[in-house]
């Protein structure tokens, strides 16, 4: 599917805007309102859309978790059925990873990368919009199955129920006959397409759009981590894409990839999945490490300790991360040598990760620490992630893992790294950059209340799970007996989860309140260090009136300490740019949205390939194939028009008094 990408060879970024020669439709120009959001190519708007959707799904995923916890509160509970439970944990895992944490990171990539590198946008703005809408399509495909619980005639067979890593052969037609699995396969495939396209865009942006003077070794750490993450994405996702193609072929065209009676080996799925899956967990954690590496220096008022080593260890984590996937398969009977090799390689990852922890502590050392809310979440991150990392190392000892694999010990491990790690850092980041993008502060006191609720609730929920796991409680079990010694632990964890839920609710409720009522703030409320704080909050559409010249790491900190030099430089830049016709801005476009719509139609119908099409009670088509192809044609023609449309664009002119005027035409 990534082949669709090639069409973007036609995005004509780079040469002067040609006169529109192919206007079937007027190009949208609205700056506000629904249209402006649907057709936007502005990285900040796209970032906010990503963020908004991701938070919505985070709450949905959390709600699913609360249902799971409620079911497990007491032994032999009959709150929900086994089937629903299986759907819930599958969708909880899938949602949290693919629809909450990944897009939240994508939101920050969009919001921050161009600002941190002193650029006006990403390298391919329309492609960026395409990634966003494609992501939405994937999210719809994954979740549409829930509808059959509300409308029984929508016969999807419920939401997917195969676990977030969908081990073959449970995904085969013989064991999962309903469409929910097809929707899962295509949903993930589409999300993968979205991520690859987005990542290619970010790679080009970071490598090629840096402001003058911004060498790679001056790049903010967050941007570095975004770069590494993007590489991980483009290199890891193909493995799962192929694995998904193979399942899809098995389900729809009778191939034998994982079909045991035809000689297929289901273990191949596990390998291909984890070749993706392990780098994936670093995809989830590296950007959070980036946020923390920005927040700690800000609130310690000191540069990051050992910048080159932090950067290098991030790269090392990404690289080693490709060689450890089989630690998820210690119990599959790989033999002694392979097990030993993966065991040792996995332990090796603790070293570069440890380096980061040490350097964060080094950053605090000798600093002037102010414990604002983002800082509290960032410190909480260090503590909690460290604990999660330790249980990771315990897993890496393969023989011990034989007792832990698929038990609640694993659940404890990965919630410590995913919530205590990734989520804490994301909550820190949201709080930290909120003033930048909304121009308002979040009240400290309420932020702190939510932090403590979350911190305590989180530990109450997941710490007991280590012991539940050691005490033999298997994961993905919908019920358990009362004589197993798991009653107290589960009861405790469930109350913890409710507390955590209250904390999360408080956190977001306060954000919503602040959106309207928060105290208005200036450019740089935290006395921060990187370029995004040098521009107004919220940032203007063109980001920088003058593209900054970077003289040092922590460029804004340098600017703050060398005000005169910088002011003169900026005035010159503005003049130079105006002489070239002003600031060039790309036009909005319908086609990213249209092509994603085509993809939705195509993929949705493809999932139902072997089902007849019924309309108004009559069968009208023998299969969904023609509709699926129609979707493909819609997508392809939208991409074609996109190619012919070109980036076009207009110019902004900044007067001496800071007033911005717009002009069209020009070149």
């Amino acid at each position, binding site marked *: 599917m*990534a*082949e669709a*990408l*090639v069409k*973007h*060879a*036609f*995005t*004509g*970024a*780079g*040469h002067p805007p*040609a*006169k529109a*020669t*192919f*206007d*079937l439709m007027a190009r949208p120009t609205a700056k506000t309102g629904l249209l402006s959001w649907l057709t936007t190519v502005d990285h900040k708007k796209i970032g906010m859309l990503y963020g908004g959707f991701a938070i919505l799904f985070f709450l949905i995923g959390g709600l699913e978790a609360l249902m799971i916890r409620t079911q497990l509160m007491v032994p032999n509970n009959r709150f929900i059925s086994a089937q629903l439970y299986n759907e819930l944990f599958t969708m909880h895992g899938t949602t949290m990873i693919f629809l909450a944490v990944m897009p939240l990171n994508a939101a920050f990539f969009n919001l921050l990368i161009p600002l941190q590198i002193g650029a006006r946008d990403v*390298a*391919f703005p329309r492609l960026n919009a395409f990634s966003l809408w494609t992501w939405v399509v994937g999210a719809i495909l994954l979740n549409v199955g829930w509808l059959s619980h509300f409308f029984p005639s929508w016969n999807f067979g419920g939401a997917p129920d195969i676990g977030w890593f969908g081990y073959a052969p449970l995904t085969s037609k013989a064991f999962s006959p309903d469409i929910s699995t097809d929707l899962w396969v295509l949903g993930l495939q589409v999300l993968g397409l979205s991520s*690859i396209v987005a990542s*290619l865009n970010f*790679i*080009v942006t970071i*490598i*090629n759009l*840096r402001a003058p003077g*911004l060498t790679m070794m001056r790049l903010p750490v967050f941007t570095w981590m975004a770069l590494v993450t993007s590489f991980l994405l*483009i*290199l*890891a*996702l*193909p*493995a799962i*894409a*192929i*694995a998904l*193609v*193979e399942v899809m*072929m098995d389900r729809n*065209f*009778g*191939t*034998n*990839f994982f079909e045991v009676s*035809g*000689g*297929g*080996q289901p273990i*191949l799925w596990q390998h*291909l999945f984890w070749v993706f899956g392990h780098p994936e967990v670093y995809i989830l954690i590296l950007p959070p490490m980036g946020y923390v590496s920005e927040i700690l220096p800000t609130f310690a008022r000191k540069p990051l300790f050992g910048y080159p080593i932090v950067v290098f260890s991030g790269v090392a984590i990404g690289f080693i991360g490709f060689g450890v996937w089989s630690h998820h398969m210690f119990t599959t009977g790989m033999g002694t040598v392979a097990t030993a090799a993966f065991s040792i390689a996995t332990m090796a990852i603790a070293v570069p990760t440890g380096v980061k922890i040490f350097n964060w502590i080094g950053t605090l050392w000798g600093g002037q620490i102010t414990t604002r809310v983002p800082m509290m979440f960032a410190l909480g991150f260090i503590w909690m992630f460290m604990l999660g990392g330790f249980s990771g190392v315990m897993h890496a000892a393969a023989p011990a893992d034989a007792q832990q694999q698929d038990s609640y010990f694993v659940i404890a491990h990965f919630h410590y790294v995913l919530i205590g790690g990734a989520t804490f850092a994301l909550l820190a980041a949201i709080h930290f950059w909120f003033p930048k993008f909304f121009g308002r502060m979040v009240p400290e006191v309420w932020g702190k209340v939510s932090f403590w609720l979350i911190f305590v609730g989180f530990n109450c929920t997941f710490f007991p799970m280590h012991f539940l796991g050691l005490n033999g409680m298997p994961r993905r079990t919908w019920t358990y007996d009362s004589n197993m010694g798991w009653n107290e632990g589960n009861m405790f964890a469930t109350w913890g989860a409710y507390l955590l839920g209250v904390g999360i609710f408080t956190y977001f409720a306060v954000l919503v309140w602040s959106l309207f009522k928060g105290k208005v703030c200036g450019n740089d409320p935290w006395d921060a260090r990187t370029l995004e704080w040098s521009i107004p909050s919220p940032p203007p559409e063109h980001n920088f009136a003058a593209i900054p010249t970077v003289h040092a790491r922590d460029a804004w900190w340098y600017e703050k300490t060398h005000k005169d030099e910088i002011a003169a430089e900026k005035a010159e830049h503005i003049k130079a740019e105006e002489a070239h016709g002003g600031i060039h801005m790309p036009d909005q476009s319908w086609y990213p949205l249209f092509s994603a719509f085509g993809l939705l139609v195509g993929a949705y119908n493809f999932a139902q390939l072997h089902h007849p099409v019924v309309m108004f009670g009559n069968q009208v088509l023998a299969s969904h194939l023609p509709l699926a*192809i*129609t979707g*493909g*044609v819609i997508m392809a*023609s939208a991409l*074609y*028009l996109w*190619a*012919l449309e070109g980036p076009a664009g207009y110019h902004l002119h900044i007067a001496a008094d800071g007033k911005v005027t717009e002009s069209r035409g020009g070149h």
Partner: protein
Amino acid sequence: MSSHAATGHIDHHHDHTTTTGIPNKKLLWWAFLASDCMFFGALISTHLVYRLNPPPGNAIPTQIFNIELTSFSTFILLMSSLLMALAVNAIQHGNLKSTRTMLLGTMFFGCIFLGGQVYEFDHFVHAQKMTLSNSIFGSTFYTLTGTHGTHVAIGVLLLGMMYVRTFKPATGGGLLKNIVHLAAVCVVMGVSFIWFVPDLIQAVYGANISELLSAHAKPYAAGAAALAAVFWFARTGGAVDFGEQNAIDVESIGLYWHFVDIVWIIIFTAVYLLEYL
């Protein structure tokens, strides 16, 4: 802006508006190709894993393959790569006419390759009785070479679009003309997908491809007519908005096309030749 760019000579390899001097599109494509390596890496791994540990009753490749045909296809693909390189070379020197010829030639060779593949699949299915589902070798072989074939087909489509684009008029076309143009493109895509793709799938299942082709003679004729119409409407007598400054676009497609070629180089060795030892 006419085809012979007024901007003077262009340094094709360095773009001074980017930090590294590498044009954005070129970087995008190289990054994508790095990613595509993993795609084919996973696919080829799947094929080899099953090939090296075959289940009982697996198909025997050497009894199925037709190495002469495959060698010929390999040669054809190599030559199309040459034409592609020449097309890029031509546009970099502002030679639009030669660019068009080379693009058409590349497409033509690509189509021969695809035709060879269709023939090969048809032959394997009917003469050799190897289908997608009756052996694991069939599953991995068709999926791997089919994915490669899909890449080639997409390449041909892109080249076609690029060819049409070389005629993009400098002064704007009429609305009606544009609509006709779009409709023709849709018809071509619709025909090729709605009939051709299911036919191909059915062929791999065991249906007879020449029967399928003749059964759908009319729609294919309609498709061919529409294709001719697109090319007709695309032609412009006047000044065109395409020239040396678009070299990067042609070069991008070229990168993709060459990549598909090198993937075939590997497939040819790993999937075909090594079987004969």
